[in-house]
């Protein structure tokens, strides 16, 4: 997403302009819905989470500080925390414990993936499982590094290094595909 649109959305949010929500939805809706779904693993619940998240985003609009986080980081934090809270409240109701289902990592499925995300899906496949599992546990399961270490039975030090390397690898992969894409565009 271009910085220009991001800036435009931020200024609309600050002015509490309704258009901000529409633009946010168009530009980040799918990604945030994917984040919510990844956490709650249920289509209807993910919809509820997205709706609640957008209401929170709208409510907190004037508290967003661009100097502290990029717009997406802020949106991600709100959606992720809303999803984790939702999951916890449901699990509390059912008197169950939150457990990580490692097999979920492989059960992503393609039914909900839009064609324009196919390239990133491919990139996802490029991340080694050992990194992806750690990233997912930390990003989507709301686990602390210690909890991830216990659940995944991986030493804490390894969790830390896999998180760092995983994120770095991600940057490299993404950077490479972006470069390739640019090259193709330039050649065509």
């Amino acid at each position, binding site marked *: 997403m271009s910085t220009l649109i991001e800036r435009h959305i931020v200024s609309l949010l600050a002015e509490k302009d309704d258009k901000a929500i529409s633009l946010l939805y168009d530009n980040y809706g799918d990604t945030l819905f994917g*984040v919510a779904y990844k956490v709650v693993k249920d289509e209807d619940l993910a*919809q509820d989470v997205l709706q609640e998240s957008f*209401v929170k985003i709208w409510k907190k609009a004037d508290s967003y500080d661009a100097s502290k986080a990029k717009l997406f980081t802020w949106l991600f*934090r709100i959606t992720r925390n809303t999803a984790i809270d939702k999951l916890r409240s449901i699990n509390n109701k059912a008197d169950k414990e939150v457990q990580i289902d490692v097999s979920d990592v492989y059960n992503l499925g393609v039914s909900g993936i839009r064609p324009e995300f196919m390239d990133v899906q491919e990139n*996802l496949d490029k991340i080694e499982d050992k990194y992806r599992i750690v*990233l997912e546990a930390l990003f989507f399961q709301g686990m602390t*590094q210690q909890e991830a270490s216990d659940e995944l039975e991986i030493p804490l030090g390894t969790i830390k290094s896999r998180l760092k390397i995983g*994120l770095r690898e991600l940057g490299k992969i993404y950077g490479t595909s972006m470069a390739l894409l640019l090259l193709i565009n330039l050649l065509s």
Partner: protein
Amino acid sequence: MKEKVQRFLDSDILEKYLLDETSKDETLQAERYITMYPEVRDTYNQLQDNLETFAKMYARKTPEGLKEIILHSAKKEKAVSRKFFSYGIAASVAILILAGASYFFWNQNQNLQMENTLVTNQIKYLEENMKNQLEDVRNQFIVLNNPATKRYRLNGKKEGKELKAVAYINPVKKLSYINVSNVPELPENKCFQMWAEVNGELVNLGVIKQFEDKDKLLALPYADNAIGYITIEPEGGNTSPTVKNIVANINY
């Protein structure tokens, strides 16, 4: 310094900060390092980019109609906040009015309390005055009606020849009154003054003004073998009687 930055980057505080999972102290530390050190800032920005990339990999098409529901919820929220804001304004106005009214009533109350004290004092004063007057009238009545009361007629001498007065003395009740019924004209700078000699002491009974009420009885201090005098004194009265100016006296 570099070691410090490296140590910070090696820790997982920045990654935790990215996910909003830092403690208060860690948040402050992360924000301080991000602001102060460009390498930390770059790493943080890179982490943010990577997070976005990673999250996008899980993007999922939002269901049809969800956008409308979300827009509707946001609008409803806005309306609620606006309503709340309006209620806030209304409440503030109400509080202001209430404060104003409270001050007004408090002020009124203070004024009324002051007025009340004033009126109470006035009533007390009037009561006291009335009591004294009543007592005076009662004594006059006693003196005038008592068979033991002796009546002395006074005629003025010298310049005060036309002065006519009647004194009522009751040795039983130890009360004495005088009624000055006629006061002769005096030069402007002169006046009549009454005195009583009680147990060897001269008591000033005051200046006799032109009598508006000729039937008014003036109380005299009673003592056995007292003497009353009327003298002519300079206007405004004198501190001691001028003996040569005695125009009337009465032994009682």
